[in-house]
C-alpha cells in the first residue's frame, strides 16, 4: 500500500476507536448523578476551549480579525438571530473588514 493510503487508513483507525468505545459500552454503564453533571458540563467547557485561543488564529497575521468575528457572532446570538444567519452575517462582516484593512 502506498504512503498516502497508509496515512488515511491509520488516521481512520485512531480516530474511530475513541469514538466507538462509548458506543459499545454506554448501554451497560450507569453513571452516578455526579458524573452526569460532569458530562453535562463538558459541552460548555469544550466550546470555550474550542473558541479560545483558536479564534485568534483565523487570520495567521491579524489576530483581531477572529476577535471581531467572535464579537459580531456573540452580538447577533445575544439578539436571538437564527444560527444560519449568524454564520453568514459574520462572514460578510469579515469580508467587509478585509476590504477596509489596507494590507494583504
Amino acid at each position: 500500500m502506498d504512503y498516502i493510503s497508509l496515512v488515511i487508513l491509520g488516521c481512520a483507525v485512531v480516530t474511530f476507536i475513541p469514538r466507538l468505545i462509548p458506543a459499545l459500552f454506554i448501554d451497560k454503564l450507569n453513571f452516578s448523578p455526579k458524573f452526569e453533571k460532569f458530562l453535562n458540563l463538558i459541552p460548555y467547557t469544550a466550546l470555550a476551549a474550542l473558541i479560545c485561543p483558536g479564534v485568534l488564529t483565523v487570520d495567521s497575521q491579524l489576530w483581531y480579525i477572529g476577535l471581531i468575528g467572535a464579537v459580531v457572532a456573540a452580538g447577533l446570538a445575544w439578539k436571538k438571530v437564527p444560527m444560519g444567519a449568524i454564520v453568514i452575517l459574520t462572514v460578510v462582516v469579515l469580508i467587509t473588514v478585509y476590504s477596509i484593512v489596507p494590507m494583504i
Partner: protein
Amino acid sequence: MGDITISRKDKFIYGAKKGIPITFGYVPMGIGYAAIAIKAGFTPLQTISMSFLVYAGAGQIIAASMALSGATVIAIVLTNFVVNLRYFVMSTCVLNKVEESNTPLNILAAHVTVDESFAMFSLSEDSSIWIYLGIAITAWLSWCFGAAIGVFLLDMLPVIVTNSFNISLYALFVAILTPAVKENKQIAILVLITAVLNIVLSQFLGNWSLIVSTLVGAGIGMYLVDDEYVLSGDA
C-alpha cells in the same frame, strides 16, 4: 420533539434542517482541506475517502499538511490520535444523552460525532438519536461534498475569501454558546475560566491542551455550577 407520534423520518429531517448552519462552515473548510491534500499528492479519490472515513476537520488538515512536508506515517497517525482524542469525550456525552437508540445506531452516531454536531445537539432540548443523526449526517456529507468540490477546484480561492470563511465554524460555536452564557451567570464564569485555562495551557501542552482544559473545566464546574442548571432532562 419528544412526542412519540412523530415519525423517525420527520425527526431525521428536523435534525437535518438544524444541521444546515454547520454546512456553511464545512463546505468551504472541506475545500480548503482538499486543496492541501491534492498539493500533498493525494488522488481525488483518496482526498474524498479521507473525509468519509476519518471525518475530522482539523485532524485531516493537519494530516494532509504533515504529508505535504513528508512526515512519517507513524508521526501523522500519532498526531491524529492526540488531536482527535476529544471525540471520545464528545461521543460519550452524545450517546449518554440520546434516546430511542441501539448499538448499530450508536456506532453510526459515534462515527459522525464531531465538535459541531456534538455542541449543537448537547446544548439543545432534543434527545432523539434520529434528530442527532439528522444533524450529524448532514454535516458529514457536506464535509465530503466540500472535499469533492475542492478536488475539482483547480485555483485556490482568494485569501480574503478563505480567511473570511475560516470564521464560520467559530461563529457557529459562539452562536451555540451565547444563549447559555446569557442565561446563566455561573456557566458564563465557567466558560471564561475554561477559555483562559486553555489559552495558558495551549502554550505548554500543544495539541493536548484542548482535551485537558475541557475536562479540568468541567471538574471546576462541578463546584462552581449549581446542580439544577445542568441536571435537567436526561437521567
